[in-house]
């Protein structure tokens, strides 16, 4: 499983790429593998305000609908419209073309609750053998 070192991770399998006060969010390689083929992404609305840990959008695989949670509090500034036509980008390039939304992080937001790559690897440890879904 690919777990890029430069990203932050939520226990609910979202990643966050920090760029100053803005963050880009997607789901991890582990998450896309567990979800199976993604066939529909219900994107968040630009301008939506969310709290860390709050459900923000839905990703649907052939198998099931899964809630996606915002790893941080803030305001959604952009969404990846390409996912509407090509939801499978979440499977093929979860850390790149498959990003889901960008968020302006709330001033003073504490991201200490997020995991480092090493901590997230530990969380999904052994999952390569096929974790429960």
């Amino acid at each position, binding site marked *: 499983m690919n777990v890029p070192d430069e990203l932050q991770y939520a226990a609910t399998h979202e990643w966050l790429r920090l760029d100053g006060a803005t963050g880009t969010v997607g789901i991890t390689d582990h998450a896309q593998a567990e979800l*199976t*083929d993604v066939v529909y992404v*219900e994107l968040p609305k630009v301008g939506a305000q969310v709290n860390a840990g709050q459900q923000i959008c839905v990703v649907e695989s*052939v*198998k*099931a*609908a899964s809630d996606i949670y915002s790893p941080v509090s803030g305001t959604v500034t952009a969404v990846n419209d390409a996912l509407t036509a090509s939801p499978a980008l979440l499977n093929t390039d979860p850390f790149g073309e498959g990003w889901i939304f960008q968020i302006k992080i709330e001033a003073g937001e504490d991201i200490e609750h997020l995991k480092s790559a090493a901590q997230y690897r530990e969380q999904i440890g052994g999952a390569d053998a*096929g974790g429960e879904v």
Partner: protein
Amino acid sequence: MVDFGGWSMPVQYSGIIAEHHAVRGNLGVFDISHMGQFFAEGAGAAAWLNRLLTNNLDRLSVGECQYTFLLNNDGGVIDDLIVYRIADARYLLVVNASKIDEDFAWMQAHLDPGVQFENHSEHYAGFAVQGPKSAQLFDAFFSGQYSRPARNEILAIEIDGENYYIARTGYTGEDGFEVFCPAGRAVKSWNDILGKGAAFAIKPCGLGARDTLRLEMCYPLNGSDLGADTTPIEAGLGIFVDLQKTDFIGRQKLADQKEQGVKRRLVPFKMTGASPPPRSHYAVFKGGEKIAETTSGSLSPTLKAGIGMAYIPTEFARINEQIEIEIRGQRFPATIEKKPLHRPNTATN
């Protein structure tokens, strides 16, 4: 891996969509070892089974099978199953994994003296080879030695001193075979199928593809589309019910429904435009009123559209009727379709 009727089973091996297309266009194999196997034997076995099952066993010659229902006293479905006549007075019943105990207890409670009825579910493994190249794989195994059983026929053979049953049946709509072998031969059989199947690019397939394939065919899944409070008539499966038989458990309710009509019917639908895939237990609307709940739903990899099934009030249960499916508070248009939603072009030969 997920729990399925007490078995830990893979949802997918390489990907649900790839596995689905492998079966529609080429060849796939499913592990169906979870399914249950009962044997009924004796001079009175056929008469006894005819009083418990909806279809008519008198129509079966040795080596043939039929799809049928086991009903409760109210005509509700306990299970849907296939019964194979494997010898003159010996029958094999293949039942759903989650219903093995309930089916067996019910049937034993109604057992006729002189019929030997046994549950051998733990002793058998099973594999479903499905797809247009199934016949070629059969020939690769048995060319010259055995001829292929015809559709809905079963072949009993011996391999290395063990009994194998090979039936021309399946749950995908494609040509294919279901193989039942002693549990001790499970791993070897699976590996042999994958080994010989490699020449045909066979793919191992999981529960995910099994569900999308059967749903495109509108084959019901017991526990979702069938249950104790639904009858085969409501499910639109009356052709597997022989009301000419004067006595079988649940008959009265079915005869009444046949005569008076049903209030609701299980029908397939397809989402009309772009929408999230429908799932089971979504509300179905017509003219602003909630009229039903979906019993199954998924994205159809073949049709590339959301599909599902629901028990719709009879007045609306018509082909081309427009309905709406509520998904996370928003209603999306759908159309009631003809069964099956997809018609495979595989010819069984």
